[in-house]
């Protein structure tokens, strides 16, 4: 009988996306360079690249959050939205006035002439004003299928930083850290158990964390190994 089961609230828990919420691990240099950039002590243009699920968007939001704390004007845009029907290159109008601009998933507009041209124009004007720019992509700037050569050389110009995939130990630590920020306790043993049993790519692990959160809340149980075994044996959804 599931009468005792408490229904969880109907929203997906969203951990805050600040630098404090990010487990740096192997990426501590990346985090440091981004923080320096926002603080105005580092490079004015950073190109952040690497696989999905490693936290690029999180870091871009963290930069915006940090900029806001420093009273800097900032703007974030995810290029995955660029192809939406109601999106338009006019989004870039006058954006050069922002002291920090973060552009996520630039690969989504590579090869799209209008967007490439708009980004190129924005890049020049924003740079001429000495403002800061952080761009993220799944691939290195050199590998992006950008058609406009002038944009391509500019994307290669900045400090390009690759976000690294942590090893299993790093993944376990990241999982425990993120869980703690969400108010969940996962012991090191339980963390290792999850890494040995679940899909180990970071996207799957974050998805799993949401499932654990829902299950723990719903059953009012701590995340012990027997309980984890039970959750993993259930089909998700």
């Amino acid at each position: 009988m599931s009468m005792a089961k408490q229904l969880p609230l109907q929203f997906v828990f969203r951990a805050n996306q600040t630098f404090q919420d990010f487990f740096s691990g192997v990426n501590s240099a990346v985090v440091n360079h981004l923080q320096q950039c926002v603080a105005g002590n580092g490079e004015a243009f950073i190109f952040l690249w690497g696989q999905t699920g490693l936290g690029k968007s999180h870091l871009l939001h963290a930069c915006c959050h940090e900029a806001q704390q420093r009273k800097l004007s900032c703007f974030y845009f995810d290029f995955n939205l660029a192809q939406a029907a109601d999106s338009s290159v006019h989004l870039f109008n006058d954006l050069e006035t922002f002291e920090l601009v973060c552009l996520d998933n630039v690969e989504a507009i590579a090869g799209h002439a209008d967007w490439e041209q708009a980004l190129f124009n924005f890049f020049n004007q924003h740079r001429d004003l000495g403002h800061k720019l952080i761009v993220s992509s799944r691939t290195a700037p050199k590998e992006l299928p950008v058609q406009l050569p002038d944009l391509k050389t500019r994307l290669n110009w900045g400090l390009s930083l690759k976000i690294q995939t942590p090893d299993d130990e790093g993944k376990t630590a990241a999982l425990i850290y993120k869980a703690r920020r969400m108010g969940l306790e996962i012991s090191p043993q339980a963390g290792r158990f999850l890494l040995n049993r679940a899909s180990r790519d970071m996207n799957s692990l974050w998805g799993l964390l949401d499932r654990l959160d829902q299950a723990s809340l719903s059953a009012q149980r701590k995340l012990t190994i027997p309980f984890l075994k039970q959750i993993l044996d259930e089909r998700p959804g």
Partner: protein
Amino acid sequence: MSSIWSNCLAKLENEISSSDFSTWIRPLQAVETEGRIRLLAPNRFVLDWVKEHHFAKIEETIHQFADGALILDLEIGSKKPEAPAALKVAQQAETKKQQPNFLNKAFTFDNFVEGKSNQLARAASTQVAENIGKAYNPLLIYGSSGLGKTHLMHAIGNAVLQKNPSASIVYLHSEKFVQDMVKALQQNQINSFKEYYRGLDVLLIDDIQFFAGKERSQEEFFHTFNTLLEKKHQVVLTCDKYPKEIDGLEDRLKSRFGWGLPVSIEPPDMETRAAILMKKADMAHVELPQEVAFFIAKRIPSNVRDLEGALRRVIANAQFTGQKITVEFTKEALHDLISLQDKLVNIDNIQKTVAEYYKIRIADLSSKNRRQSITRPRQIAMSLARELTSHSLPEIGDAFGGRDHTTVINACKRISELKESDVKVAEDYANLLRSLSH
């Protein structure tokens, strides 16, 4: 930041997705007066989006924090001083000499590294800076992206200003000229626009290839250009190719652009690339050993922006880890960049590119054929393989039909001599190097 708005932001941050919050809410600037809050959006697009998707939520949240009635307005604007558009400069023509010229002070002749590939362009630029409107007018610098055209342009502007601080100079990208003109037309201020641009002592316009297909802008630029030249005021232009090759540019502009002196910039050779790296490191107050400069120069053969990007990475890693910059350290710091370069340029695609360029078969490059129409491309391909890949000489010889490594050495030596004595070989080599490195 106003207190009501900061409370509102803190609440909204936890109620809507990070992406929506950072894109649409965080950039809004609040101006709070008694009984009223004005939210400023950077442009029409953001304004419309916020109005449609988030306004109700914002309104509801603001009213939770406000005491009593409050009027909430959403409009386009900015609290920070806006980018000083040339148009605004025009409206204040009497004070134009105090207006921003968009020159980057960091680009000077002193820190421009000269090599064979750019010495003519540098010499012409120096001449122009010393005799504005008299030496070469217009001066047109053309070449691929990332080779230093913009640097020279700023250097001219900075040198002129140093000599004559009251000179009115503006650097701008051709797209900015187009945007300003469109704004001027929309706001019925085209006369101020014309007056402003036609009254400059030196006009520096970057990347004129972007005028292609924009007829109204070309028309306006044509008249601005003529007026400045008639008054013997200086015009400097850059372009990614020789203007006659630009599609969508009016013939009368193409011909006028060629009136003064068109000079090209080619990709830098390895020695110049290394010298550029040393100079850039020096400017960043970083000691870069010569062998490291040559290591990077050999691995990044394309353009100056790529070189700078690589150097930035090395310096940033060294500063973060506190380690000394050595070849080993650099290899590690640029690990992914180098493996990418190796992936992009290998002997196979060098052979393919060379064969296509000379319209011969790839198999010819590995054959025993000794006709010059085959041996020359073969020698060029071997030289490129030596310059662009990290394969050993025996490996390169092997890839070209099992030839001995001494054949590779002789081929490289021969091409190096021919690059000095035969313009066609030098040009072919530069073209192939460029197409393989981009």
